[in-house]
């Protein structure tokens, strides 16, 4: 076992649950300073329970939580508050509080007996708001801003607490894509600038994969995997973790597709270089099973085709398309009796003489038999 000294925040044999009944046992979470650790897992798997246990809001049933070498449970409330702050899913409805007031509550562990803010406190509140780009919200009433804005105010509040560890429960759930990325970028820059450690739960797998140094996969009663994202996102794992019954998640790209239409293919799509993906998705929406080909396995269209096509003819990356695949494709076309050529004609022409020439051949083959009906590229040379 590695020395625990290198970790800033870690758990040992942690068991969490409610009313003395352990829900998840043997949780080992380890995070260094400046690292981001993310919990992923299906709804109700216990991510929030784990988070609430490590921030001492829920009594751990077994095991210990360490922060900077010391046991967290031995710290006083104030000591812990100065080192660890939170952004929770609990809805806050403070009346008559401006956003600045809400952010300023983060200074609570530092103010005196009556909670009067010093000049320093006010400066830190201001800086935190600038960092999250919410200075313009300062005087707005907290109850009257949008959920996304509230979330950012709560982050500013957490940062203004000047923590060394920040724990966030599904912080991006209410944010639109711009603010999701902005929010996570701020967290990332905080880890670099202030050596902040981040522990959070996320539902967005693609974002989790990109931002996390460590990922903890929580599955029902145990932690299924723990490690860097490249060890977590192995093909097929997400389907297994979430017990997905419909649709697919492509671990390598983060692409999501809806459930494929099964059955005998009715349309053959000649695709490549990203041209086919929108066509595949349209056919999926219309409920038409289709075949696709010929695609290199590193083609932009390959992930969507693999997820959605009832039949797929593909070639390993960097290998020429051979006559074998071409023949196979022709047979499938024959069965379908209808072909869509997603590739623009100009592009098809440029393939002549190259490794993609069979695509041009397939196109001609389909044209000659009148299988291509509804494409603008019909009027060829």
């Amino acid at each position: 076992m590695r020395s625990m000294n290198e970790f800033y925040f870690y758990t040992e044999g942690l068991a969490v649950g409610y009313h003395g009944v352990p829900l998840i046992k043997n949780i080992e979470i380890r995070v260094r300073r400046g690292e981001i650790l993310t919990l992923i897992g299906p709804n109700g798997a216990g991510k929030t329970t784990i988070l609430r246990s490590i921030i001492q809001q829920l009594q751990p049933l077994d095991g210990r939580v360490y922060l900077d070498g010391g046991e967290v449970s031995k710290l006083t409330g104030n000591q812990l508050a100065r080192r660890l702050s939170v952004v929770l899913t609990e809805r806050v409805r403070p009346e008559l509080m401006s956003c600045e007031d809400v952010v300023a509550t983060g200074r609570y562990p530092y103010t005196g007996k009556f909670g009067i803010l010093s000049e320093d406190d006010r400066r830190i509140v201001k800086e935190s708001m600038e960092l999250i780009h919410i200075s313009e919200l300062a005087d707005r009433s907290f109850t009257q801003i949008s959920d996304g804005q509230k979330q950012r105010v709560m982050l500013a509040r957490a940062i203004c607490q000047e923590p060394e560890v920040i724990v966030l429960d599904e912080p991006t759930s209410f944010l639109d894509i711009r603010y999701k990325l902005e929010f996570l970028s701020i967290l990332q820059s905080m880890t670099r600038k202030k050596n902040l450690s981040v522990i959070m739960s996320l539902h967005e797998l693609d974002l989790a994969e990109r931002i996390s140094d460590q990922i903890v996969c929580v599955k029902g009663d145990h932690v299924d995997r723990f490690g860097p994202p490249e060890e977590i996102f192995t093909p097929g794992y997400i389907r297994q973790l979430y017990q997905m019954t419909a649709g697919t998640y492509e671990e390598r790209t983060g692409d999501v597709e809806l459930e494929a239409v099964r059955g005998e293919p009715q349309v053959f799509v000649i695709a490549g270089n990203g041209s086919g993906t929108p066509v595949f998705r349209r056919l999926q929406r219309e409920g038409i099973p289709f075949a696709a080909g010929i695609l290199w396995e590193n083609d932009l269209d390959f992930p969507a085709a693999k997820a959605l096509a009832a039949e797929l003819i593909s070639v390993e990356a960097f290998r020429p398309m051979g006559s074998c695949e071409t023949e196979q494709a022709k047979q499938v076309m024959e069965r379908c009796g209808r072909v869509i050529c997603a590739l623009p004609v100009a592009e098809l022409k440029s393939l002549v003489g190259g490794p993609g020439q069979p695509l041009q051949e397939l196109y001609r083959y389909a044209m000659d038999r009148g299988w291509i009906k509804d494409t603008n590229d019909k009027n060829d040379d």
Partner: protein
Amino acid sequence: MNQKRYFISFSILIVLLIAFLAVNLCAGSVSISLSEVWNCLRGRETDRVISDIVLQIRFPRAMAAVILGGALALSGYLLQTFFHNPIASPFILGISSGAKLVVALVMVFTLRYSVQVGSVGMILAAFLGAMISMAFVLLMAKALDKMSTLIISGVMIGYICSAITDFVVTFADDSNIVNLHNWSKGSFSGLDWNNVIVMALVTFVSLFLVFCMSKPISAYQMGESYAQNMGLNLPLFRTILVVLSSVLSACVTAFAGPVSFVGMAVPHLIKGLFRTSKPILLIPGCFLGGSIFCLLCDLLARTLFSPTELSISSVTAVFGAPIVIYIMINRKKEKA
């Protein structure tokens, strides 16, 4: 800008307090001029009767209204904070009625056996009743997730306690029954300086303690999870809050009987005046507001149909209920 608002708000409250205090001393079945009152206060009034009316009857009564009104408003503020509920108050949650019941039982018992119980004993009895009701409300709060049902259960406790009190009062066989009857309807009458000193001690110590809690209260307003992360010791905080609000409403009930709506309406008026939720301002603000509200209501109760005196609760309800309704409507609008 905010500072200015706070300053003006406090000034308004203090001016109103002094003004109503003066009117309370002047007005009554015997009208006494301001200069005469001033003379009485300085001990220079030559007319013994007037001096007695001002110093022995009106002044202690007005002070009782100031102290108990403040205590009620503060108790309401604490309960609203505790339950995160805008209409929580000692009266609505049945805490006043619980206190009333135990005090009535003690009174009837002591009258029958001719035992004397002082103000302190009454406060203890009221506190016991308040804590019993409070315990029940807290149990309900634990069992019921919804705040609306909590309020309903509080109202029901109030009805049960009031019914038993009425029953006890009706069958109490003593000449003092009239007093008991008046008290059980709520009134500031018949309070002397000894009572005032005791209530002042209890109330001002509580006020001081509540004021010292303004920082944790501000954390608690952010919700329990966040408050805990700020380093607040929740169980301890909750216990102190419950005890203090019970002591305050018990003190009121012991001396003036149940007084409705002050605890509910005043904190909202004060929040509207200050436009803030900072406890450090609202705590003294609510106290002053409650004092003014009760001075006004007691003045009306005494003088409106003089010599017949109205029960204080009838007057506070007339003013308080519309305020609460207005607040509820406004709240709906804000949410929509």
